[in-house]
């Protein structure tokens, strides 16, 4: 049975623990702040030297940090550089420096038992292109047993630094990767590799789809022939991605070949069809656009207004359309667009 004195004793102990915990937290916080301030000072002190060496390319002022904190400060400076600058000469200096002086450190970090450290090591290996760490990254991928995050970062590293090997690793893990992860990995590849995957109509549909999505994101224009062929692909997702690509590359096929999209139930197909109209003359597209501008889906309506606006004589086309229809929403959308305003809540 718990007596009052036992209870007070427990409260007292809890109180003491709480006080100690508070003291420990505040000491730890102040230690952290002190460390951050020191690092900030080191960043300030090293900024000029780093600028001279990495940005200006002055060999005389190359500098390797003497303490862990100073090395962290230098890394922080270099992270800022690679976030903003992509001059080949500057990047080469940064990557060479990081490989030479930090490669061993990140390899050691990647072997750590602490998962946060391992993830951070992978981030640095990718950002600073630490080629020396590649064999270790590959070994870990082959062994498996990686967390989702580690797996993704490792695959990104291979895609970035060893393109020719990426597909074999991708194959190993493809079942465990989400569509977004596949895209992220493919997004590390060079433009030429993306073209190769699309032009060869890669047999792996997931890989092909990821490449098409990257192509769309980067607005790569020279894949028109392959993209047209992919419109007939048995995989619906690949077809859809190819169709999206056509909005960028344009098409020289007769409009009638795409007419089934105009009648499609799915709004995205009508949306793509609306965007494709920009590649045809208004004489051929007027009646399609007149219908699409009154579509039940506002995204399609908005796209139709935008498409009309791309024609040189858009004002006259709008006038004509206003005479030919009664749909209040469509009339409002056109008027809003002509006043430089808003269509269905979206800024024009």
């Amino acid at each position: 049975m718990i007596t009052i004195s036992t209870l007070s004793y427990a409260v007292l102990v809890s109180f003491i623990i709480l006080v100690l915990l508070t003291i420990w937290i505040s000491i730890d916080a102040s230690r952290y702040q002190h460390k951050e301030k020191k690092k900030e000072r080191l960043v300030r002190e090293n900024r000029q030297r780093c600028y001279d060496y990495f940005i200006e390319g002055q060999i005389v002022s190359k500098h390797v940090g003497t303490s862990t904190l100073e090395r962290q400060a230098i890394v922080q400076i270099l992270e800022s550089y690679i976030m903003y600058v992509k001059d080949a000469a500057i990047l080469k200096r940064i990557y060479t420096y990081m490989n030479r002086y930090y490669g061993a450190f990140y390899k050691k970090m990647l072997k750590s038992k602490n998962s946060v450290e391992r993830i951070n090591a992978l981030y640095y290996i990718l950002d600073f292109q630490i080629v020396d760490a590649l064999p270790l990254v590959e070994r870990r991928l082959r062994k498996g047993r990686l967390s989702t995050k580690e797996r993704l970062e490792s695959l990104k590293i291979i895609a970035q630094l060893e393109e020719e090997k990426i597909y074999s690793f991708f194959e190993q893990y493809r079942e465990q990767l989400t569509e977004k992860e596949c895209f992220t990995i493919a997004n590390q590849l060079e433009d030429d590799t993306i073209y190769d995957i699309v032009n060869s109509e890669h047999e792996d549909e997931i890989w092909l789809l990821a490449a098409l999505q990257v192509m769309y994101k980067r607005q790569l224009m020279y894949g028109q022939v392959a993209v047209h062929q992919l419109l007939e692909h048995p995989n619906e997702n690949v077809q859809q991605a190819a169709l999206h690509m056509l909005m960028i590359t344009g098409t020289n096929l007769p409009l009638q070949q795409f007419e089934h999209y105009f009648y499609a139930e799915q709004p995205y197909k009508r949306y793509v069809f609306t965007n494709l109209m920009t590649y045809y003359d208004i004489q051929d597209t007027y009646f399609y656009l007149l219908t699409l501008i009154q579509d039940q889906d506002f995204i399609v309506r908005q796209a139709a207004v935008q498409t009309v606006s791309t024609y040189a004589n858009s004002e006259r086309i709008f006038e004509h359309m206003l005479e030919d229809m009664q749909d209040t929403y469509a009339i409002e959308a056109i008027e809003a667009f002509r006043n430089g305003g808003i269509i269905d809540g979206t800024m024009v």
Partner: protein
Amino acid sequence: MTVNELLHIEEFMKIYRFLQEQTIRQRTKMTIVGIRATSNTSYAQLKTMILQTARSSNLYFELSFDTIGVLLYDSTAKEAQYYLKRLKEAEEQVTWNAVICELRQNVEQFSVLQEEITAQFKREEIPFSIVESHRFLQSALLKQKVSVIEANAVTRQMLTQAISHIDLPNVALEVRSFEDGELFLSSDWYQSEQAHIVIVNAKLPRKNGIQIVSDLREMPNQRKFKIFLISSLPAPEDQIAAYAIGVDVYVVRPFHLAVLIAQIKQQIMRGLR
């Protein structure tokens, strides 16, 4: 509009002073041509021919008792050469000599200019000979302000330093950096008349890049600003929106630092022309 008579020097001086001010303020240039008849042509013949071929965009005046002056506004010596070529082709029996004087700086005393033109006329008379004076070609020093508004201290220092290293003849760069938009707009640094290049990150604490661009474009003398917006968003719609609010150059990061510096140089050079 036809030109019937030459302006008297007193009348011309009033307009000249006004145009001089404009030349300095707008950093433009003007050229004055002195034309003198050779011995087989009379002053009256020359005057008639010049007035007959006159254009309303130029000013025709009595430079001295025997010399007719033509002021070509916003024109260089090269354009004056073309003008004289047309003049020669108009009537080849009327012969003359000419002196071209391009002005890129403030010549307050018109008499200095008169003396320079008179001194440049050659003693021996070769019909249609043209001499160019380079005495007033040197432009006034261009004071160019550059502001870097960037929250990341490392990037701020990198940009500031790289821009400070721009070395252009006849340009005095004044570069300052700010941590955020609020600091920039609360300073009086941006309020002067001087040409001003603003390099601003779209993402900033307190007041973001887009807000700064809007605020600057609402100023009455907003034309002096050339605004570079640094953004991580490459999508065409983001760029179009930025240009719509008045951005001059949209820079997607990561960018080529060397290219950015070349673009800034080009903006400064435009101010020099």
